C-alpha cells in the first residue's frame, strides 16, 4: 500500500482513492491518489486540477493566470510527483501552498487559482473573482513567489 508520500511510475492504488492522516489538533488530512498526466512535474505547493475530458483522477498542474472553478481543483501537491507518475496530493487539511509572483497573501485571506506561475494561487478578490473559485485560505502571511501554510478544501 502506498503512503501519502509514495511516488511511482505504475499505479499502486485506484485513482481517486483517499487516505487520511492526522496532525495533532489540526484535524485530519485527506489525500487523494492521482496520476500526473501533464508534461510538467507537480512540486510542493502546486495546485493539481482534473485534466480536460478526464473521467478519472488524472490531473495536470493548474494553468497560469487562469481562474478555475473549485470543483475542478483536485488537490495540492506536498511533494514532487513527476510528469507521468502516480502519488497522493492533499485534498483537505493543512498544507503548503505556492503563491504567485504577482502579490503577497495575508493571514486568513481566501485563495483561488490564477497565480502568475503554473500551479500557483492568488488571493480572492471580492467583486472581481467568482467566489466559486475559492478552495483555500492562508493561515499565515505568504510572500509573493513564496510558499506557506494554508487550509484547503478541494472539491474536485
Amino acid at each position, binding site marked *: 500500500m502506498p503512503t501519502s508520500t509514495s511516488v511511482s511510475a505504475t499505479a499502486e492504488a485506484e485513482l481517486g482513492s483517499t487516505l487520511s492522516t492526522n496532525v495533532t489538533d*489540526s*484535524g485530519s488530512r485527506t489525500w487523494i491518489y492521482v496520476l500526473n498526466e501533464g508534461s510538467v512535474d507537480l512540486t510542493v505547493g502546486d495546485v493539481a486540477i482534473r485534466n480536460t475530458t478526464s473521467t478519472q483522477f488524472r490531473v495536470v498542474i493548474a494553468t497560469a493566470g487562469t481562474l478555475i472553478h473549485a470543483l475542478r481543483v483536485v488537490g495540492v501537491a506536498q511533494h514532487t510527483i513527476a510528469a507521468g507518475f502516480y502519488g497522493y496530493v492533499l485534498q483537505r487539511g493543512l498544507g503548503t501552498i505556492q503563491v504567485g509572483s504577482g502579490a503577497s497573501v495575508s*493571514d*486568513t485571506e*481566501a485563495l483561488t487559482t490564477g497565480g502568475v506561475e503554473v500551479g500557483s494561487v492568488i488571493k480572492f478578490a471580492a467583486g472581481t473573482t467568482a*467566489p466559486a473559485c*475559492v478552495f483555500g485560505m492562508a493561515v499565515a502571511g505568504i510572500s509573493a513567489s513564496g510558499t506557506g501554510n494554508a487550509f484547503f478544501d478541494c472539491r474536485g
Partner: protein
Amino acid sequence: MGFTGAGIATDTVSTTQLAPLGFELTVPDGDNGFQVWIYVFNDDAASLVEGTICARDAATTTYDAIIAPVDAPTIRVMGVAQHTIVAGSYGFILRKGLGEVLADTGGIAANLPMVVGGAVVGRADTTGVAATTYAFGFATETVAATALATCFINCPG
C-alpha cells in the same frame, strides 16, 4: 444523542481538552440525515452561543475557533455553535447537517444560500447572495433579524 467511545457527547463543554482539536463526531439525526460535529477550542473573548458562526482564529493551524468576523470568507467557517461554549472552553460545534443559525440584521430568507453577514459578528446573511456564491449553508425557513433559523449547514473550514 451521539457520543464518542470515551463518553464525550456533542454537548459536552469543558475547560480541559478531552479530544484532539478537529476531531469529528458523526451522529444520525433521524430523517434529517447525519450531523457532523467538530471539536474546537473557543479562543474568542466571548461565548459561542447557539447559532453563532465560528471561524478559524487568525494565524492558527489548529482548530481554535472565534466568532466569525463580519464578511469572513466561507472557507474560514468551521461550524456553527448549537449550545453555549464559553470563552476558553472546549466543545463540539456543528460542521454539517441540520442546525440553528443566527440571522444578521437583514434576517434570513428561506431557500437561499447563506454567507457570514456584514453587520454583526457571527451572524448569517442571505440578502443578495447569488446562486454562484460560495456559501456555507442553506436556509429552510424565513426568520427576522437576530432570530434563529433552521438551516442545512456544510462548513468547509
